[in-house]
């Protein structure tokens, strides 16, 4: 089996970052008047 765990980890982190990042973005937009 090929050794490519690093790619999987990267993709999972990037996905989480985008989703959480968007959630945070939405939250901050409501704080600004």
């Amino acid at each position, binding site marked *: 089996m090929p050794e*490519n765990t690093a790619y*999987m980890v990267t993709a*999972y982190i*990037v*996905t989480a970052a985008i989703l959480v990042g968007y*959630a945070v973005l939405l939250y901050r937009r*409501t704080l600004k008047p």
Partner: protein
Amino acid sequence: MRLLKTGRWIAIVGLALLAAVYVRAIAFTPVERMQGVAQKIFYLHVPAAIWTETGMILVGVASIFYLFLKDPRLDRFAEATAEVGMMFGTIVLTTGPIWGKPIWGTWWTWDARLTLTLLLFLMYVGYLLLRGAVTEPGLRARYAAVLGISGMCLVPFVHLSVYMFRTLHPQPIVLKPSAPSLPGAMLATLAFSFLVFTVLYVGFVTQRYALSLLREQAEPHA
């Protein structure tokens, strides 16, 4: 405001469930023999892709109804779905190459899904840019609706032609990122992930919709 809070809670639940998806996908789903651990990217990539494309169709449908009914709620929904769809598109366009590199040996390939997602992403960008460029709300909604409907009509053409293209120029790689038939455990993980992405879609669109509503209420109409 109630709608905003509801949306926020749904999204938080979604993110918590996402953690569960991660655990299940990484620790409790078998590793695919040919592709190895990298195949697990599939469980995030596919649901995101489904929602990217569904989003565009929803924008189109909402736009059609808007042109007939002129209900601003439809326009707000279209705007919210477009933004969330673009965000999911970003996930597909990042996880796709990251998955492609170890499996195909290349960061990009004119694979059916990546090409379609790239075009969808460009359509979302155009849609949001157009909205940003028109200040008058009625005009903006109408223009956006025209673009949204056009975008939705383009999707089947891209599907068709990319599949046609592949039959003439076969892929240089053996493995494809999507398996038409999955063993039970993998299918369950995929289904769970898709469910969570749906929850996230609902939560985010609700919040974004509420944001538009709040903004309109804050500014007195001309």
